[in-house]
C-alpha cells in the first residue's frame, strides 16, 4: 500500500528540475513561461525545484556543450530513481541549428537517456505541457 501511495503521488505531483545544457535561452524562457499564470503547469501538480535530489523529471534544454557534459551526467546521477528526462527543443533533440558546431554534442541522448522529446525552436508552452503530459502517461503505464 505504501508503494502505491508513492506511485500515486509521483503521478499526481511530479517535481521537475530545469537544466540548461548550453541553450540559447529561447527554450528556457518558454519553460519558465509554462510555470507562470498564463499556462500554469502547477495545475498538474508540477513544481520547479532547484536541486536534482528533489526532482522526478529533468527538463533539459540546449545542445549539450563540451564544458557542460560532465555536469549534466552528474546532475543525472544525483537524481533519485525513478527519473525521467524531457528534452525540450530541437537542440536537445538533435543539436538543431548547432549541428556541425565544434563545441556541442548534438543532442542530450548522446550523453544520457531521454524519455520524451519536444521538438520546436523553441516549442510553444502548450507543446511543452503536452510533452509533460505524455511523460505522465508513460509514467502511469510503466507503473
Amino acid at each position, binding site marked *: 500500500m505504501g508503494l502505491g501511495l508513492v506511485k500515486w503521488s509521483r503521478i499526481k505531483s511530479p517535481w521537475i528540475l530545469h537544466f540548461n545544457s548550453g541553450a540559447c535561452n529561447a527554450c528556457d524562457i518558454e519553460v519558465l513561461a509554462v510555470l507562470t499564470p498564463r499556462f500554469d503547469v502547477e495545475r498538474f501538480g508540477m513544481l520547479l525545484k532547484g536541486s536534482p535530489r528533489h526532482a522526478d523529471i529533468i527538463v533539459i534544454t540546449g545542445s549539450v*556543450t*563540451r*564544458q557542460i*557534459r*560532465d555536469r549534466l551526467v552528474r546532475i543525472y546521477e544525483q537524481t533519485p530513481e525513478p527519473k525521467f528526462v524531457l528534452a525540450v527543443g530541437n537542440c536537445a533533440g538533435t543539436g538543431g541549428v548547432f549541428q*556541425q*558546431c*565544434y*563545441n556541442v554534442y548534438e543532442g542530450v541522448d548522446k550523453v544520457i537517456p531521454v524519455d520524451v522529446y519536444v521538438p520546436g525552436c523553441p516549442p510553444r508552452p502548450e507543446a511543452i505541457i503536452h510533452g509533460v503530459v505524455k511523460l505522465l502517461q508513460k509514467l502511469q503505464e510503466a507503473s
Partner: protein
Amino acid sequence: MTGLEEAVEKLKSGIGAENVLEVKHQPPRNVFVLIKPEKLKEAITYVMKELGYQYIITISGVDLIKENQFEVIYHLSDYSNTISLKIRIPRDEPKVPTITDIIPGATLYEREVHDMFGIVAEGHPNLAKLLLSDGWPEDLHPLRKDVTIQQIRERLEEERRKGVRGI
C-alpha cells in the same frame, strides 16, 4: 571634413603619418586604420587620452592565412564614432602588447583572442581560458583557418578517449 576625418588626421600627426599604413572609411561614423604594430600602444594611448575616446567595444582577430599573418583589430569608440585600429602580426610569432594598463575593460577581450587564435597579450595579468572548456588542448585554437570544424571535433574526441575530462 567630418569629426572622424579630423580625428584620423590628428592621429596621423600624433603617431607619425609614416606609421599609418591605410585608412578606410565606413560612412557615416566608422573608420578602419591600419598602423604599424610597434606603434599600437602609442596609438591607443593617443586615441584614449588626446581624442577623448573612453570605450573599447572589443578586440577582433582575423586569420589572414594567405599572407601568413594575423590581423588584430581594436575597436575604440567615443560611443558615437568608432575608430578600428588594425595591426598585422606574423602568424609564427603571435604576440601583441597588453592594453589593459590603458583600458582596464579590455581584459576579457584579450583573453578571448588568446583562446581563439593563440595571440598572446604580453603583460596581461591573467591569460587563463575564457570560453573554451576545461579540458581543451592548449595548442588548439578553433578560429584559426588551418583547422576545420571536423578536425577540431576529431581532435577533441581523441583527447576524450585518452581520458581528458571537461571536453
